[in-house]
């Protein structure tokens, strides 16, 4: 999948990166890069605003913790975020199944 197409699914990818438990911003972005095989070419600093947008929308919740003497912002999925991720995942499965069926179907050979 091209980087441009991946960017259109950034919210889903960020929510999925938080599914296993709370992470700090950089860890979310690292998980995202690993999950996409490094094909998401957005500068790291421009992915943080997407986390803030999801927080404003109530899909993730941020809180400050002190780690190693410096403050760190941790994010976790909210119940609304978990529901949104399930919805996005189901929609993606439907879309993928439909596209696979449509693109891999072979026209039947006409009877002789």
């Amino acid at each position, binding site marked *: 999948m091209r980087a441009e197409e991946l960017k259109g699914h950034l919210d889903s990818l960020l929510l999925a990166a938080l599914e296993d438990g709370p992470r*700090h*911003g*950089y*860890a979310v*972005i*690292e998980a995202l890069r690993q999950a996409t095989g490094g094909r998401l070419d957005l*500068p*790291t*600093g*421009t992915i*943080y*605003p*997407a986390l*803030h*947008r999801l927080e*404003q929308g109530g899909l993730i919740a941020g809180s400050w913790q002190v780690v190693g003497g*410096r*403050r*760190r*912002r941790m994010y976790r999925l909210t119940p609304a975020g978990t529901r949104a991720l399930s919805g996005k995942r189901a929609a993606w499965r439907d879309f993928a199944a439909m596209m696979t069926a449509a693109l891999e179907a072979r026209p039947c050979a006409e009877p002789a």
Partner: protein
Amino acid sequence: MRGTGLITGYLAELEARLPATIVEELADGLEEAFARYRESGLDDDSATRAAIAEFGDPQLVAASFAAACPGRRLARRLLLTGPAVGLCWGALLITSRAWTWPVPDAARAAVGTVLLAAIAMLVHAALGHSYRAVTRAAAAGCASLTLLDVTMIIVVLGLSLRPGWLVAVAMTTSGLRIVHNVQGLPRLRAG
């Protein structure tokens, strides 16, 4: 790492454009990126450069935050709902022949001026590229609209207009917008 000139300069560029809490979060991420590059075998200087390159141009980072900031969302919501509120009031003002109301011309002009200024500020907040300018414009536009809503409700109550569904609808839409704005204004970080 923060002692190095490169990082200090990078964070200073962000500090000039973004609220302190956002810069603090980015600084923590930069520390983390630097540590990863050091672990991968780079020396201090190369790891610093790699971390900065990974985070991206500070202007681009600041513009991305401006595009996602709470002020922008608030301004867009007010611009989207504004015409509906305006339509309700317009219908009420025309049907109740507002030009015959005992209101001084200066007050009418002031209401018009504040309304136009509020719209201009909200448009600026919805389209601007600077986090601080977007936040300030959204706060000022939001406060101005609230002032207008309160003024219009007081004027209508003071004139004791004959009750009707148009009065009820206009007052309710303004009332809802006042509640929305009073809740939304504190969420705007001044930065």
